[in-house]
């Protein structure tokens, strides 16, 4: 327990340092207020990374179990298409959202089944699912954008709790809470850690390894789907291009957050904080008007530094 808390402290320090730097150098308004460190900007930044944050909860479960899921962005895209098309066809909000979640969960379960019983490497399986889900989204939508969605759904995505906290951020925090409790405080969570830490030992100690794998990938799909729902609610449209490439951001968030890609070790809170690091960084680049040519370089370097800095604080015997 102590060790896990210590790891999150590392990433919090990184965030605080970034925040302090941006508070110092970001432009100020005429009234002298920081354009970075003000409530509206911070809420906008949180809302912007909420999709990655939500998806990273599921991704943490998968990675802690010793697996990986490259299909996150595509499953999100497929959910976006499914939900948007259902809404546009007149389905109710609950029905459309359920359809989206079922589709995303199904993708996760298929990946999980192939990993668990097909004994295929997660990298290859989810790489295939990346293409399958993206292609399915394109096929379903016919390549068209879906717009004209009901105002009530969009009001949720663009709405606020107590006029302050964007609802997507609320959903992200709830997802984080659910994931953190599941991973830290439940038998399931302990089993996932055990599986990722040493699969052979997990099998020998009688853990239902195959079912565990099915469950984590299924949950991974569900959280990607939830992020997809929030996407549709926030932007009020659907397209098969939603979430292209986002799996890399999600995995970066999880790694920055302190989860080991080897498995067995990691926290959901850390991953969401990792998503925050990426979000704050991109916000900073925009506020500082950093020329586009440098953006990708800077993001890459900061990610590497954040992970290095974090690892240096926690010497580990395993890679």
């Amino acid at each position: 327990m102590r060790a896990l808390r210590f790891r999150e402290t590392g990433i919090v320090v990184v965030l605080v340092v970034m925040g302090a730097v941006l508070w110092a150098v970001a432009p100020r308004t005429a009234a002298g207020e920081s354009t970075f460190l003000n409530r509206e900007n911070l809420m906008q930044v949180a809302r912007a990374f909420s999709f990655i944050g939500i998806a990273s909860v599921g991704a943490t479960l998968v990675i802690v179990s010793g697996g990986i899921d490259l299909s996150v962005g595509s499953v999100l895209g497929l959910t976006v298409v499914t939900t948007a098309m259902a809404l546009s066809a007149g389905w109710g909000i609950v029905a459309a959202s359920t359809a989206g979640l079922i589709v995303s969960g199904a993708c996760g379960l298929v990946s999980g089944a192939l990993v668990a019983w097909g004994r295929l490497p997660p990298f290859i399986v989810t790489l295939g699912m990346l293409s399958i889900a993206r292609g399915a989204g394109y096929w379903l939508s016919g390549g068209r954008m879906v717009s004209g969605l009901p105002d009530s759904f969009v009001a949720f995505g663009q709405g606020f709790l107590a006029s302050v906290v964007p609802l997507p951020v609320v959903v992200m925090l709830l997802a984080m809470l659910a994931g953190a409790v599941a991973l830290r405080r439940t038998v399931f969570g302990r089993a996932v850690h055990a599986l990722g830490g040493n699969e052979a030992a997990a099998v020998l100690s009688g853990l239902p390894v195959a079912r565990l794998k099915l469950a984590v990938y299924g949950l991974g799909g569900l959280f990607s789907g939830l992020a997809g729902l929030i996407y549709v609610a926030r932007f009020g449209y659907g397209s098969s291009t939603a979430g292209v490439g986002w799996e890399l951001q999600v995995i970066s968030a999880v790694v920055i957050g302190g989860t080991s890609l080897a498995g067995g070790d990691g926290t959901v809170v850390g991953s969401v904080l990792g998503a925050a690091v990426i979000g704050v960084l991109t916000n900073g680049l925009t506020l500082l008007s950093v020329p586009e040519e440098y953006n990708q370089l800077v993001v890459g370097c900061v990610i590497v530094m954040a992970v290095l800095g974090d690892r240096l604080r926690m010497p580990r015997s395993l890679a």
Partner: protein
Amino acid sequence: MTAGRRWPGIVIAVALALAPGVSLSGENPSAPASGAPLTFAIVPKLLDNPVFNYARVGAEKRARQIGNIRILWRAPQEADAAKQVEIIESLIAMKVDGIAVSCNEPEALRGVIDKAIAAGIPTITFDSDAPKSRRLTYYGVNDLECGRLLGEALARETKGKGEVAMLTGMRGAFNLETRMEGVREALRRHPGMALVQTVACDDDTAKSVSQIEGVMKARPALAGWAFVGGWPLFARGALDPVDAKRTAVVSWDALPPEWPYLEGGKVRLLLAQRVFHWGVESVNLLVAAAKGVRLPRNSYSGVDLVTPGNLAAYRRMWTRWEDPAIPFGRDPLLKP
């Protein structure tokens, strides 16, 4: 595992790994036969961009209108010049009667376009050209000229004064870079204006929306925005951080999700490419080429300049284009 048991796994793994290389295709069955149907292959940059879907609708409708033409719609799932080259090579092997391609990268496609021409297959480009290739003609906008138009429009809307920002999509995309060059050229003619920030959203709508938020936070007094593509406007509420009276927004593309922004006064001008006609004219030009007609070096489409004032007229045109029962005719370019 013994070697024997490893086999199925390897086969499946390889198949799954190759899956990203498989592209989707669509076929339009030909109309009443009067001789062998002509098969035209249209190769947009990628499948995953809704804007090309309108081109497909246009192509298939025009093909039905003419009759006896089969359309093959082939593209990589995501923008990938190498995969486009592969696709065109297989089309050459298939001996199609014509190819129309929107190039991901002009130089990367040059070789295979020349190969198609050498193989006797009429080949044209649309939307995104390969000017140094031997393509018979290019149909689409003149990106540099239209970039200048966009820049001039922004200068008009801001009365030639103030700081402005620009939004682009995929970094390094040839046609986007050319549009931006046009915008910059136009802005340079107005010494009272300064292009203070350019952001690239990698064609990601979600990213573009948060970039606009960030820029408006840092520069609340921004006089204007030029979008060289409509990515943020596909979403709703993308311009909430923008005070329409203070900041003039002009954008490329006038697809239906963007129209409410004109109606709401958030956007002053949309520079509309003739997206249906990428498909329509590809068919027309390939038919002409098949008949041996010599095509001009460039067949610029021009742009419709859509404003809140003429949106109703544009809407009517769009409805006609989309209606499967109404054939394509001559539609003069819309002026503000």
